[in-house]
């Protein structure tokens, strides 16, 4: 359970208007690695925007997650170019290595594995993102090395 004051500190950074919604939700996402239910409720109270509307926004944007995500987010691009260059194999190998299905989070809350549709870097295919950092011409073993290094840091 997160204290209400933690949400308030983030909300206070923005103007109290409906237009601030997305920016605040993004900050929630960054801070907690997901958008907590209590956060949406508090935001609804402070900005006087219906909870249903904020919840709908949370489900609409792929950048927002309503369930807790891992400390590290691994995104495998499965767009057309990456698909041809072997993204499905990378995805399968990562699922095996991390012991989690796509769009799932490991039990220790360390990693979330996701697949995304084209990150606009097709020349580097196959592309994998580790915590928003782009890695091109990847193989599953290379991605695992990057992940391990990240965790040690």
């Amino acid at each position, binding site marked *: 359970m997160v204290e209400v004051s933690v949400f308030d500190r983030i909300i206070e950074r923005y103007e109290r208007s409906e237009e601030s919604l997305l920016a605040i939700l993004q900050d929630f996402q960054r801070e907690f690695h997901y958008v907590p239910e209590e956060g949406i409720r508090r935001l609804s109270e402070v900005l006087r925007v*219906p*909870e*249903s*509307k904020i*919840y*709908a926004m949370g*489900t*609409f944007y792929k950048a927002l997650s309503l369930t807790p995500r891992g400390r590290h987010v691994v995104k495998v691009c499965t767009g057309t170019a990456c698909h041809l260059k072997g993204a499905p194999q990378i995805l399968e190998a990562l699922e095996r290595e991390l012991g989690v299905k796509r769009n799932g989070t490991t039990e220790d809350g360390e990693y979330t594995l996701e697949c995304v549709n084209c990150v606009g870097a097709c020349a580097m295919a196959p592309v994998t993102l580790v915590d928003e950092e782009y890695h091109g011409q990847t193989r599953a073993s290379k991605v695992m090395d990057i992940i391990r290094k990240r965790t040690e840091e």
Partner: protein
Amino acid sequence: MEKISVIIDGKTLHAVKDRCVLQVARENGIYIPSLCYNSEVESSGGSCRVCLVEAHQGGRMRLVTSCNYPVRAGLEVKTDTPLVRRIRRGVLELLLARVPDSEVIREMAAREGVTEVRFRRDEGENERYKCIACALCTHVCAEVVGVHAIAMTERGADKKPATPYHKPSEVCIGCGACAYACPTGAITMKETDGVRRIWGKDFPMVRCSVCGAPHIPEAQVDWIVKRTGKDRAFFDKCPDHR
């Protein structure tokens, strides 16, 4: 209100400028099928695509949704051309593939000669089995009722109306306006022993002091009293015994 004249299916009609084509057609007894439009709901329409018509203006023709296309001087509308019928059949075929269980869609499609679909039928989860994701229910809840209990969640093929976290809503008053407005009967509202169940929440009903019939949820009375200051005693009796 500025009056103009438009032609719909060859008939010259006088209409209020900027009123939508569908409304003008209805007022003049011209049938255009539609699902997601409700003239009482400001932002309804433009979603189901069933009411497509040909709009001819300035020597150009466009297929438009008649529910949100404004009538202007010089506009000619054709509601029943081979093109309109063909596109409408396509729209209905897609709708039928999505909600094969909806009687309304089945009947409307059958009227246009669509009984089979070439697409994979949607085996969707129960909650949206008949839902065409037109959002009319959410517009009614927000604009007409004013409680914002439901909103359109998710996106693409998963888009559906829902309460936050699919939990019983804290603000829903159980009025059932969403279920009433839904064009395909996708929202279930059940009443047993004076309790109404909708969106996963139970609403105790007020019983009529004359006939004993449950006729309005207590939460809805609270809402009306709060919003309008109306005398609570008014709701002691059902509409038949007032």
